[in-house]
């Protein structure tokens, strides 16, 4: 492995593929570090190997990835699959794990294309075996064709939940119910944003089609569901909830939950990039300029990792970041950068029309975000409950890091990935402070698993 690259792209979803392809076309040295076995990211997972029939079950949006992947494969970008990035710092030194061997390499420009993660929303019983993120269910389906055979209950909010129900329907899985926790009041707030969303009407049409298909197949969708609770002794046995003022109970061994997606920001935060609270998307995201530049020189973020925009938007953002990197490297002059960026910028704007509507429509209720139930575990690694976090705040610990120091929440193996947002919400609510002031956990490396033996064997090209 070389010790230095002109451009390092981290992640090979739509943003990473587009960025690497554009940059490689200009003749610079590009390395793409990807945790997956093949290019495509989450959205176009297993693009190259998936059987035709399963591909069509996933819908035609999925097919769009084919073009991206083949253009990338045809480029000179060097692809490192199954390569875990466990660190990135302000000097653009990247910690990698490649076939069990730890390396550090450097790059002049780094584009982080880490994509999104599902928003973790703790609710009573969410840690029971049998409760899974819908995304995890989707991965099993896309990559392995695995579907739960006794049927599932789906619960949560957001377009992916609908899509997954639709995909399951087409794969012949019994969907016992779809519990939509989106508060009805959202329709009111989303309404003024509808006209702009109509500019990207194909998304709405698609959503309506999914809904129609589900209804036709007899899958019951319950709206305005509240007080979601997973129940069971050692594993999930049933799901209870409030619907139209009535307590209901559904027996199921599998509950797939989904509460929308948020940017996966661990790498940018560990590198010291400034992050801001996005009140519309209810998440932390890196502060970026129009090219995707972060507050750290030479580090850019493209795609959902910089704020949720969807797969197509990510593609455009990837190209824009690549153009900026090429400009910074001296490969493109300013005028060329501007010219080449024009179309992507326009298309990206068109893609953004739908967002304000979706964000308002699918906004999770505050009491869920703030984990109203004191006994619910927020940090499952260190077993810290919402009540303990509130107690720490009442005791004068008034930002995320103080609470972390005191309660250890966010100090477990997931490094706060599962609880950071919830802790921000709880602390803000309990202290009456703004989320921006609550701050985010200071991120500590490694952001991906690294063993003592692997660190001991760190191979540094520099020291050779």
């Amino acid at each position: 492995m070389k010790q230095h690259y002109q451009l390092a792209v981290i992640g090979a979803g739509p943003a990473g593929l587009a960025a690497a392809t554009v940059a490689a076309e200009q003749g610079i040295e590009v390395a793409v570090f990807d945790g997956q076995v093949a290019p495509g990211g989450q959205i176009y997972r297993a693009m190259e190997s998936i059987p035709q029939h399963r591909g069509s079950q996933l819908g035609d949006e999925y097919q769009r990835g084919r073009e991206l992947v083949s253009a990338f494969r045809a480029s000179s970008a060097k692809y490192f699959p199954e390569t875990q990035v466990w660190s990135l710092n302000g000097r653009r030194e990247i910690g990698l794990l490649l076939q069990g061997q730890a390396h550090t390499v450097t790059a002049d420009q780094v584009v982080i294309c880490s994509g999104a993660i599902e928003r973790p929303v703790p609710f009573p019983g969410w840690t029971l075996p049998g409760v899974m993120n819908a995304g995890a269910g989707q991965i099993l389906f896309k990559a392995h064709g695995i579907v739960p055979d006794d049927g599932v209950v789906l619960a949560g909010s957001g377009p992916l939940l609908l899509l997954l129900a639709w995909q399951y329907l087409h794969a012949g899985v019994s969907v016992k119910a779809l519990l939509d926790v989106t508060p009805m009041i959202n329709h009111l707030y989303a309404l003024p944003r509808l006209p702009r969303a109509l500019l990207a009407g194909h998304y709405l049409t698609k959503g309506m089609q999914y809904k129609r298909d589900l209804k036709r197949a007899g899958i019951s969708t319950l709206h305005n569901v509240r007080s979601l609770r997973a129940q069971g002794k050692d594993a999930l046995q049933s799901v209870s909830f409030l619907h139209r003022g009535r307590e209901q109970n559904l027996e199921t061994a599998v509950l797939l939950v989904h509460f929308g997606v948020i940017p996966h920001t661990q790498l940018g935060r560990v590198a010291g990039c400034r992050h801001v609270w996005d009140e519309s998307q209810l998440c932390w995201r890196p502060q970026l300029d129009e090219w995707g530049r972060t507050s750290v020189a030479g580090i850019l973020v493209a795609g959902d990792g910089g704020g949720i925009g969807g797969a197509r938007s990510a593609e455009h953002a990837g190209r824009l970041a690549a153009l900026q990197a090429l400009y910074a490297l001296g490969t493109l002059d300013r005028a060329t950068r501007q010219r080449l960026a024009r179309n992507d910028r326009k298309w990206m704007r068109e893609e953004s029309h739908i967002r304000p509507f979706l964000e308002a429509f699918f906004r999770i209720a505050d009491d869920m975000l703030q984990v109203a139930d004191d006994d619910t575990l927020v940090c499952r690694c260190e077993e810290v409950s919402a009540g303990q976090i509130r107690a720490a705040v009442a005791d004068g610990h008034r930002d995320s890091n103080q609470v972390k120091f005191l309660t250890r929440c966010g100090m477990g193996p997931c490094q706060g990935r599962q609880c950071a947002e919830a802790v921000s919400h709880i602390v803000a609510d309990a202290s009456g402070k703004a989320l921006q002031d609550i701050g985010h956990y200071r991120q500590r490396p490694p952001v991906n698993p690294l063993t003592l033996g692997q660190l001991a064997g760190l191979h540094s090209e520099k020291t050779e």
Partner: protein
Amino acid sequence: MKADVLIVGGGLMGFSTALHLAMRDTRCIVLDKGSPGRHASGVNAGGLRQLNRHPAEIPLSVVAADMWRHIRELVDSDCDTRFPGQVRVAENEAELGRLEKRAALTRSLGYQHEEIIGPDELYALVPALAPHCIGALICRSDGYGRPFHALDAFRRKARSLGVYYQADTRVDAVRQDGDEWRLSTLQGEFRAPVLVNCAGAWANHIAAMLGEPVPLKPGAPMMMVTERLPHFIDPVLGAAGHKLSFKQMQNGTLLIGGAHMAELDLLQERTEINWQKLALSARSVMTLFPQLKDVRIVRTWAGLEAFMPDNIPVIGASVTASSAYHAFGFSAHGFQLSPVVGRILSQLILDGTSELPIDPFRIDRFASSGRCA
């Protein structure tokens, strides 16, 4: 705002000093430029170690050890302390020879807390240790605590006794007006007849404002913690031939330090892990516990600490200003000393003298060397 004593720095030293003063009915204000225990106090390795201390620190450390054993009486919390002993292993004859010399030195000073043990006792104590070690220096009454919990307990107790604490308050200027110190901050002026500098890695700025610059160098020792493992080791372990501090915490995680330094940016208050150097710590662990190679590292970090050229702190009165005192520069081993340092400062301030020998820590010891930063 007015009080009897102004303390700059809301870390363990600052709160310990405030607590001891408050116990004697002295009104204190503690100011911190950020949040309490944000740096050295909150993120150190938590070692409660008398073992292998600089001879000048031994008298303080021995008293501190006793205070930690009874820490609940002082702060109403045990600060998650445990006292399974600390050992410093030797892997060859030369190292063992050095440790024996060290034990003899401690004895010659009249202290009994360090002794040499042979391989039989070492392996009875630490069966998991790689088989090549030949002995160790041990202090059986040593142990460890959890720094942030200790800080929280000290702060809580101090506040319960009326200590006023204010976070996010940076001292911009210090001046003495008659017999009153005045600290200017963006949040207003604070006044008191006595000033105490416990500002950690930033203490040299306060000292410089008093006209006595010191060659303090900030450093950030790196640490890492692993996933939880079944209990397999009791004592805290160091090694004569490695920069290493190794312990298994109450929850099963391994806390590994080694005084290898991170890159740091004092202005941004940021540290960055130097992986090549941290790999040295991992290699030390592999040498002594090769069976741990597949254990996952969960987190690495480095806190900002103040280092002095001779690696012992500054404790005592200012030599340029009246009614001003310092306690800083603990050079990455201050945690254990914090209860006693607070007591010493309270005695200096209220009685004019300390029961313990602190002359080696005087601030003007660097003056002749001309190495002032």
